[in-house]
């Protein structure tokens, strides 16, 4: 009889917890893999495709599915480090011997050489190039992610990737400068 009571008690407990868990599974369902979102926010969103994926989010999904974390040259070592922290893996040097501290660039169209072919407009992943057929094109510097994708399609090679200019807002004190001293 005691055995019977124990079975009832445990069975009912199992049922109650099962119901709670089942309800929670439905109620608090997570639509997509949250790790993908987290990875995506770490990635620099240049949408350059240098990782081999068509954009940052696909690469985030790739990392979530076990791809390497060192395929993002625009992000540099900082991004790799953050990804390593997030994914709980060891940070690696960037694949392909890329620079650890990438220089930020923006595209610049030499406007008198532009023939207005619109090829760069089609290549730009963030619609940062404006222009029309047979009209000069130009880059919206504020929107340009420096992904280089417009350089390749240009038939007249009139697109340069220029380093972003330092302004008073982005200027930094040189702390590691060697002090100049005069020797008598």
């Amino acid at each position, binding site marked *: 009889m005691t055995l019977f009571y124990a079975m009832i008690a445990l069975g009912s407990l199992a049922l109650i917890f099962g119901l709670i868990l089942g309800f929670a599974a439905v109620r608090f369902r997570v639509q997509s893999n949250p790790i993908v979102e987290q990875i*995506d926010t770490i*990635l*620099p*969103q*240049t*949408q350059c495709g240098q990782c081999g994926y068509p*954009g*940052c*989010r696909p690469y985030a999904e790739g990392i979530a599915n076990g791809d390497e974390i060192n395929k993002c040259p625009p992000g540099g070592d900082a991004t790799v480090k953050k990804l390593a922290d997030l994914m709980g893996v060891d940070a690696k040097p960037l694949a392909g011997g890329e620079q650890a501290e990438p220089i930020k660039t923006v595209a610049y169209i030499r406007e008198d050489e532009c023939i207005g072919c619109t090829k760069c407009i089609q290549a730009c*992943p*963030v*619609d*940062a190039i404006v222009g029309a057929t047979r009209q000069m094109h130009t880059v919206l510097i*504020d*929107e340009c*992610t420096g992904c280089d994708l417009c350089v390749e399609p240009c038939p007249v090679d009139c697109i340069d990737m220029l380093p972003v200019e*330092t*302004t*008073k*807002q*982005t*200027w*930094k*004190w040189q*702390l590691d400068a060697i*002090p100049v001293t*005069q020797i008598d």
Partner: protein
Amino acid sequence: MEKLIAQIKQGKVWPFPGGIHPPGQKTISNTQAITRLPLPDKLIVPLKQHIGANGQLIVEKGQLVLKGQALTKPVANWSVPIHAPTSGTITDICQMPSAHPSALPELCVIIEPDGQDSWCVLAPVTTPSLLSHDQLINIIHDRGIAGMGGAGFPTYIKADSRKAIEYLIVNAVECEPYITADDVLMREHAAGIIAGIEIMQQLLTPTLTIVGIEDNKPEAIAAMQAAAEHNDKIIIQTVPTIYPSGGEKQLIKLLTNKEVPSGGIPADIGVLVQNVGTLFAVNQAVFEGKPLIERVITVTGNTIHKPGNVWALLGTEIKHLLDCQGFSPVPQQRVVMGGPMMGFTLPTVRIGVVKTTNCILAPDHDELADPGPEKACIRCSACADACPASLLPQQLQWFAKSKEYDKLKEHNLFDCIECGACAYVCPSEIPLVQYYRVAKVEIKEQQAEQVKAERAKERFELRKQRLEREQEARQNRHKRKPATEKSADEKQKIADALARVKNKPAKDDDKSAVAAAIARAKAKKQHQDTELEPDNSEVALERAARKEQARKYKEQKAASNTAAVPDDKKSAVAAAIARAKAKKAAASENESDNTTDAATDDKKAAVAAAIARAKAKKAAQAEPAASVENDSSESEVATASPADDKKAAVAAAIARAKAKKAAQAASVENDNSESEVATASPADDKKAAVAAAIARAKAKKAAQAASVENDNSESEVATASPADDKKAAVAAAIARAKAKKAAKAEQAASVENDNSESEAAPTAINEAEGKPEQTAQDKKKAAVAAAIARAKAKKLQQEGSDQ
């Protein structure tokens, strides 16, 4: 609060944590009155001398400007105009080194003074109390006033505070060593400063205005107290000399015991701080109408012969200031803009004075030694004791060195006012503030990048969506294309119908022919047009055409009915026609009725009946393809023709022509106009012949116009000469054969078209019915006809294969 005001009025101050006591060095420069410099050779006026956006340039190179004339106009938020400091010529507008530790070039207007110093027209206000709030704000904005304490915050924004201001605090502390610009300004222009305070009081309506002055400036305190005597809402508060009591947050704490929340602004706690220099500029702007074009600058240091305060025009080169005051540089001379604590060493002295420049310090190596090499932190925590913001400077230093920006944010790096107290007390000579500044820029950059990444992501997503939409649109266009073709077909049909309708009323032969030609041409043109650019006007035209057609059809029907009655012989024929028409209109499903009716009549009636049958069938086969229609009507004609005379032959020919034309037109509706011509013709021989000729001609023309298939025109040639019985029979036979072939071809071709096939089946039956009748009456002719038909069929086949 009452208690607090009472305490403030009693002169109570609440000390802030930390602070240092560096040697003041103020007596070097505050013993003389403010002097005015001679006009410099050139003025370099940067477009941006404040926090916020540049104004828009409204002058150009080579232009003559008057003193006080605006050089830029404010455009975006937080943009403040700049003005010409003296009259002269704009020699250049170019990038020049800026008054910034980096000396990064920025756009400057370079003015060569003409020595006249002639003012532009000023608009002074004598009684600002009569002006509205907005008018006063506009004056402050247009006169280009920005905070002169150091940050350069646009004053019009501060003065237009949306939040209720309880305490207006006037910062006259001037806590940094060496600087005495505010001190001497207060001594000389206390009344003007108080007038400026009163304008601010009018704008902000604070409960109390507190002027904080350090106790090392007794003369300034006395002057200010004397000037503010009439206004009991202004309290001149003496504060102890301690660095950095002139910091905004520190001064608020000192005077009101309130603390500005981290990341907040003083207005959040109902406090607003203005610098005395700014208030004097407000006074000048309102009462004298003068824009901010000059300011008091302390030129001091051991290398200066005549240290003191000068009124310097904005844009005056630092070199000019130094030269005027007598400057004998030492080797590796440093020239500092600002005080020794918060100022920065200028990379060059060819930089213009800006609105925020309060001091030029040219020290020798004894008074301001070069910083020694950085040594290791010994964790003495002297920096933490000195920090006026209660931060942990050594902690911040380590985080800054290891670039742990999250940690820096956690340790409230952004509450650091960069006063330099920590670095001043540091025994290891660590340039702490520099570390913080770099870290701050890094963090801001990261934040900006984060924002940019978000935008890029958003734009990328939107672009992806747009591309998907475009792809979909393209696919839809491909799907819709057959549909539009169909509608073009329909349009063609309608156009043909319209042409027929136009044909109809023209009973006159020539005219009708011409009209028909025109109509066809029009129809063609319309067809082309609709193909090229299907627009609404076309649709509207079609609708109108359809209506017109319907109306004319009705009229014509009524006319033919009434016209047929008076004629004796013709009456029967007309009756038959009418019956046939009636049947046709009812989509004539019962054909046997029709034939029995026709049998009772005379010869003409028989002909008419034949025609009627042909019509009826045509109507019955309205839906299927052209060839099916064609063969049925032809077979009917064939049945009728051998039994009759010339007229019958003519009628048959007409009928055939008609049928062909109908087939070519591929019209859904019956060919009304043609049928009219046909039915009219049997009544009179000659007329019939003429009509037949016309009909043939028309048919040919139509065939040529359409020129879709060769066999049509050939059949026309065949039917062109049925002048007598035999020929008629032969023609009939040919027609039959053709009809058969066409039927076969149609069956073969129209595998996909179920409708036409099902329609074609009854046609074949009809044909079969007609044939025995015909063969029984004339065997020879039939044989001949059959032979010809075979020959033709072969030819057709060849042509078909060629095609």
